[in-house]
């Protein structure tokens, strides 16, 4: 342990102020009374003792910190509350200091300073020694066994009364005329008083809450990651094991998981708030539901709006139709956003169909695709013939093309 030769540990017990005099006396083997008398005498020499005491405080070491170091000598017992002697010493010093300041002329007036002093005393009394504060359990906390220590209830109450008294004096001094205005001011001052009483506790507990929240966020993040991996990757791996003899299903599962994990890791599509993201999400969805590959290509992009929703619904219907009826493993989706319209193609190389022979039972085409697009002012064309695949062509004019996402 490296201590400067001058340094000594301040006393933590049997002290009047910070334990500087006692610490010095202990270090050098003199009676503490001698040191104190010397300090008092020095005061007569133009208040020099204040400087000496301050220097002594700066040179000495904090006994609590010293005690925590390994190999430190016997740990001093923690000072047991404020002894009456110490309290009196503090009050004397405070009053003396106040009188000195008053003599120098830097003074705001007797009434004001008295009021401020009473407020300060009240705050000091009420906020003494506590580390945790919970407004809901304030009354039970001020029990003798509570964290506020002995006589806490009495102390808090008297502190609050002192604060209220102080602010009342302050309010009276400002000489507000009229009972109504006085009432309002008194209420406001009471609020200030309460804030002064509970402020220190609140500040301390807010600090603790912040630290606690940081810890909680960290562990929540970890839990969220574990939960996500469990819900996604582990589930998929389990599904893959169970579908090992079905290569197509396995591939679909793996593809979906890959995209999902990639999105999650790199946040490429936080949510389908753009048309391109929505089209990709749709493609993944159809892939997982219908065991097909959906090759989706989007050129340009724009924020998702009513036109986007309409177009996406029609594209989805066309894609699902192809997945269900074309009898192929692959569907191509192409969406191009241009300045005045959106164009979309959904294409498969499947068996195709003859419009005339299936029109009655294929409600999807007329309802979900054609009507939907036409209601929105667009056009839908379906090109298909048996054995040559199907292509659905959608063209939707944009009414407000201004919000196109700039590439």
């Amino acid at each position, binding site marked *: 342990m490296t201590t400067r030769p001058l340094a000594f540990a301040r006393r933590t017990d049997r002290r009047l102020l910070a334990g500087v005099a006692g610490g010095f006396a202990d270090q050098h083997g003199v009676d503490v009374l001698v040191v104190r008398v010397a300090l008092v005498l020095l005061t007569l020499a133009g208040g020099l003792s204040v400087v000496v005491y301050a220097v002594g405080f700066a040179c000495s070491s904090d006994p609590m910190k010293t005690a925590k170091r390994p190999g430190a000598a016997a740990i001093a017992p923690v000072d047991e509350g404020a002894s009456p002697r110490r309290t009196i010493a503090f009050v004397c010093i405070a009053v003396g200091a106040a009188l000195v300041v008053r003599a120098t002329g830097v003074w705001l007036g007797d009434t004001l300073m008295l009021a401020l002093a009473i407020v300060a005393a009240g705050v000091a009394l009420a906020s003494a020694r506590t580390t945790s504060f919970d407004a809901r359990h304030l009354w039970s906390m001020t029990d003798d066994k509570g964290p506020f220590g002995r006589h806490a209830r009495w102390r808090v109450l008297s502190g609050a009364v002192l604060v209220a008294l102080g602010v009342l004096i302050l309010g009276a001094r400002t000489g507000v005329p009229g009972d109504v205005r006085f009432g309002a001011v008194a209420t406001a001052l009471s609020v200030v008083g309460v804030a002064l009483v509970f402020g220190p506790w609140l500040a301390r507990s807010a600090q603790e809450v912040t630290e606690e929240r940081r810890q909680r966020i960290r562990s929540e993040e970890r839990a969220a990651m574990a939960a996500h991996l469990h819900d996604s990757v582990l589930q998929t791996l389990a599904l893959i094991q169970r579908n090992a003899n079905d290569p197509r299903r396995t591939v679909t599962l793996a593809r979906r998981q890959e*995209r999902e994990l990639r*999105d999650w890791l790199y946040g*490429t599509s936080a949510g389908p708030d753009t048309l391109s993201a929505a089209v990709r999400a749709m493609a993944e969805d159809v892939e997982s539901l219908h065991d097909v590959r959906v090759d989706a*290509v989007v050129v340009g992009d724009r924020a998702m709006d009513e036109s986007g929703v309409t177009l996406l619904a029609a594209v989805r219907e066309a894609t699902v139709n192809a997945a269900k009826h074309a009898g192929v493993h692959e569907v191509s989706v192409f969406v191009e956003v241009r300045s005045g319209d959106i164009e979309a193609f959904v294409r498969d190389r499947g068996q195709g169909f003859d419009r005339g022979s299936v029109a009655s039972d294929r409600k999807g085409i007329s309802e979900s695709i054609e009507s939907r697009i036409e209601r929105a002012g667009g056009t839908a064309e379906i090109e298909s013939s048996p054995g040559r695949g199907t292509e659905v062509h959608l063209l939707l004019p944009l009414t407000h093309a201004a919000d196109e996402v700039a590439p």
Partner: protein
Amino acid sequence: MRVFLVDDHTLFRSGVRAEISDAYEVVGEAGTVDEAVAGITATLPDVVVVDVHLPGGGGKAIIERIKRDHPDITFLALSVSDSAEDVVAVIRAGARGYVTKTIQAVELIDAIRRVHAGDAVFSPRLAGFVLDAFSGALPTPEDPELDQLTAREQDVMRLIARGYTYREVATRLHLSVKTIETHVSAVLRKLQLSNRHELTAWAADRRLL
């Protein structure tokens, strides 16, 4: 034809090898950039099928290092990466085409044959990237020849993005397959050589999946 495979996933490599070994002679494999450069320099294959993402620099680094001494070796990018930025970087480094790893074995064999024959191979996704990159008119194109797609090239790119094969595009546009291949090669050249500032800005800014 002699083919070299570069991919950091051993399992995937052996899968591709199994799929194409009936059609081509697979002369070597590698999992890292350095291994690949050494292997390709030693075996001098006709076509290198290269992954976009690799430990130690990626497919782009391999292409750049090999092209200096062996400009005749052809590269085909094969990747799970859907990122426009990565794909465009590999194409600009000199790959003759880009296909995704979900490609069917038959299509992959065909794609290798076509890049070897000097054609460009565009997957629908790459065609989409190209349309995106060349979209919008430049106020003052530095080189109109390179910085813009012709109307015909745009037609071809759109059809490829819609899932059409070259043959289907040719039928649709009443052109020969050879003409389509010429257009696609022209687009590839523009993608590789264009100074269109939007192309780089787009590749950097755009966070397409």
